[in-house]
């Protein structure tokens, strides 16, 4: 039993067998993403009541918090696959890490953008040097650094490994950066309004955020799988199975 299980893990760690698996999973993840985001949108606009202090502006939080969670989570996942790729020397893990970065950067951007649009009516300014927003900004820089480093290195294997080292260094640094920035912002501002310590977070609100986050999660998986499939085709173009695959498609 155990040998068979291990066998199947290694089976799907080769790009050739992962490619069709990713293709099969992708539409399901996309469908779940549409479903969860639909339910999340319904809750955030039609179920959740108006907030007593923030009015309707707080409805931004549903996507803001979900996007912020996703951006940090995807960085951790990217670090995990980078580590796996570095230790076990599996090409597929590095490809997954590469494919995760752009989606993670986009969610970081969304978190920053919605944070600014939420801050304007709530705090009165577009940008506040709040711990969360500032960490999110630095996270965006980390994502951009990873993408830029991989883009600048022509040799594929070196790009994978250098990116992996950078991602791991980043993963160690993210909590340090977060707590530094948090300490710094409490020192400089005194008590600032924190996004999640809203007076009493209603159950429906939390539910809406969780479902929205699930939707974003499914979306990220679908987007990453799609990107991994492109990366696999590009990198494995010298193999016969890719040639056969392309012949079948073109």
């Amino acid at each position, binding site marked *: 039993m155990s040998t068979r299980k291990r066998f199947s893990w290694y089976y799907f760690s080769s790009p050739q067998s992962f490619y069709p698996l990713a293709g099969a999973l992708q539409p399901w993840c996309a469908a779940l993403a549409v479903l969860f985001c639909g339910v999340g949108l319904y809750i955030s606009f039609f179920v959740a009541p108006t907030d007593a202090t923030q009015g309707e502006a707080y409805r*931004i939080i549903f996507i803001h918090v979900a996007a912020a969670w996703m951006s940090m989570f995807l960085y951790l996942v990217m670090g995990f696959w980078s580590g796996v790729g570095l230790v076990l020397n599996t090409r597929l893990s590095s490809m997954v890490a590469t494919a995760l970065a752009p989606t993670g950067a986009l969610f970081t951007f969304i978190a920053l953008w919605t944070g600014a649009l939420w801050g304007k009516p709530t705090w009165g300014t577009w940008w506040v040097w709040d711990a969360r927003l500032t960490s999110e900004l630095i996270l965006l820089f980390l994502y951009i650094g990873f993408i830029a480093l991989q883009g600048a290195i022509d040799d594929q294997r070196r790009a994978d490994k250098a990116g992996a080292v950078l991602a791991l260094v980043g993963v160690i640094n993210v909590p340090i950066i977060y707590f530094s920035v948090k300490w710094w912002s409490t020192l400089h501002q005194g008590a600032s309004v924190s996004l999640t310590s809203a007076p009493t977070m209603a159950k429906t609100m939390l539910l809406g955020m969780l479902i929205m986050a699930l939707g974003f999660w499914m979306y990220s998986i679908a987007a990453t799988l799609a990107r991994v499939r492109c990366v696999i085709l590009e990198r494995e173009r010298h193999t016969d199975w890719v040639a056969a695959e392309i012949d079948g498609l073109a």
Partner: protein
Amino acid sequence: MNWGSWQNFVAMGGYGLYVWGSYIVTLVVLVAEIVSLTMRRRGVIERLAKYYAARRRNHETET
């Protein structure tokens, strides 16, 4: 939550610009990623098809 009318829904209690600004930009960003991924896949398939065709032609002229 009952909005009453379409206008009320769009106005978002005066915060329409911020709320819709957030939701629409999020939608645009995600749709842009989907479009770019579709285009990338199409581009890769097209490029590789040409690459294999060229390789096959070289093969034939050599042999």
